[in-house]
């Protein structure tokens, strides 16, 4: 379970999050909607342990991750969180196979069979040895999804995962994410400004000027 208590975040003098309190249960699929600059990506970064709040607490499975030091946050990101980014964030100089394998390597394994299995599950058989720049946007996002899920994280954070895709490809990607996370009952937080995409979730929150409301 993820619990945010009165979380605030500032960038210089600007208050981006203004006392967010939110509770997400295990297995929830939540959409957070908001316009650009509303603070939705910042919120996702805080939950994902990529940044720290200036005030408040973020409690994940009973642990206050806002009090973690850098090493514990790194471990938290490695073991518990899978991130899907808007611009895919794949490493350009390595192949599809190697991109998906990186989180496993950081975890101390190199389970090639598992990588092959995930490549198959996102429908990229035959593309193992291609580089990201040789793939379409939709295919790159499939690689990113496989990479996010390969370590079997409890929490999946998706920051505008369809933001740089056309609507048809976006829908396919969303269905893929849902298919993959439903089986394992993962907690999913999805940030989007697209109403249609937000409808895939079972709860929708809106964020405006750093304040969240249902």
């Amino acid at each position: 379970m993820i619990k945010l208590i009165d979380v605030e975040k500032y960038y210089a003098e600007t208050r981006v999050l203004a006392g967010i309190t939110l509770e997400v249960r295990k297995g929830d699929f939540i959409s957070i909607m908001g316009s650009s600059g509303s603070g939705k990506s910042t919120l996702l970064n805080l939950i994902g342990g990529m940044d720290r709040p200036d005030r408040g607490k973020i409690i994940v499975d009973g642990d206050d991750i806002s009090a973690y030091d850098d090493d514990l946050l790194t471990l938290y990101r490695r073991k518990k969180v899978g991130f899907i980014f808007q611009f895919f964030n794949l490493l350009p100089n390595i192949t599809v196979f190697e991109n998906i394998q990186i989180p496993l390597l950081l975890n101390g394994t190199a389970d090639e069979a598992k990588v092959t299995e995930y490549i198959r599950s996102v429908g990229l058989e035959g593309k193992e040895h291609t580089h990201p720049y040789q793939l379409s946007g939709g295919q790159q996002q499939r690689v990113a999804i496989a990479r996010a899920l390969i370590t079997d994280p409890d929490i999946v954070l998706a920051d505008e995962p369809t933001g740089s895709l056309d609507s048809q490809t976006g829908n396919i990607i969303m269905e893929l994410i849902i298919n993959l996370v439903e089986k394992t009952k993962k907690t999913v937080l999805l940030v989007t400004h697209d109403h249609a995409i937000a409808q895939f979730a079972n709860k929708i929150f809106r964020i405006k000027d750093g304040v969240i409301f249902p």
Partner: protein
Amino acid sequence: MKFLTLLRLLTIRNIKNEKFMTSLSIVGVALGIGLFIGVKIASDRAIASFESEIKGMNPKVNYEILDISGLDFDEKIYGDVLHREEKSFPIVKVKGLLKDKKETIDINGIDIVKSLQFLHIDIKESYELERLYRDFNGVIVTKKFFDKHALHKNDILTVLVYDREYHLKVVDAMDTELLTPNTVIMDIGNFQEYFKKYGFLTKIDIATDEKKAEEIKKFLPSNLSIEKKDDLIRNQKAVVASFRYNLQFVSLIAILVGMFLLYNTIFISVVKRRTEIGILRSLGSDKKTIIMLFTIHGVLLGFVGSLLGIILGQIIAYFSVIAVQKTVSTMYSAISISEYMVTPSDAAKSLILGLLVSFVASVIPSFEASKIRPHETSREGSFEGRYRKYMKFFTRNYV
């Protein structure tokens, strides 16, 4: 963590992709190390040559009598010296330039039997002593010199001494570490006659104690002095040391340039790969891994650069030995250096220096890389943030 696989994917592949920067850094390190090793060999060999010049034919002697202005002196004094110290050895010597080989040799006229008996070398059985005395121009060369020039017994060495041509006949080769390779030995009597130095000596080597040395000093004429060999070596070393520092300064600048190139390569790599580093951090890579990936990147370039530098150093050593030999001979005292090969010890020292320099050059940008935060995949980076405050200043001045 499967660190080696990560290293292969993220570092080795980047080295292959960034061919220009990789080559530039390797060449930079190679030039620095090459120059360092070349200069080191030249100055080390120059000092060694000075030392052996002073130690002379007989490393067991500890004093020498010399003319204070460096000229040859009347041999009559030898009788008086011998009367007080039996272990004294007259020497007359000249420098000769091998006409065909453009190499300098030290031609020494010595009392061979007395000198070698003192050194416990059984010359009668080992060498063709009779021919050395019989042949007016007969010489014994060192085994190293003999092998280096593929000589045979009875070969003639054409030598220029004081602008006159002389022909020395090789009667034998002596396998000894006591002499520098370019030392040539003649019988003192034959030497004086052949080089027209009748009745003259260049120096007298003496194995004696301080008390007897003081006694000898008392009766020496004013143009002669008795000196302790260790003092002479120390003085000559001091003279060469300043020359050596100048050369080392140049090689250190070259190493600094190599270090700067390497630092730049890693720094540029960090800046260019900022997003990649952010991605790795967001996937759970710790700071230590990032530091190691980039430091090893630099050290690998430094390793390859150092190996190339050692090869390059061998070539530089050849030319710098010639240059140092000429300069030292012109400025201080005539020396001949025939050894210019990089020894395993020189190579190991240079490799360690190269690795150390590349480690220092890459560890700073590596720490910079580790400071990149995971969310810099989507936001302005720590690097830009840190330098943004200076932008106003530069923009205002530019406008």
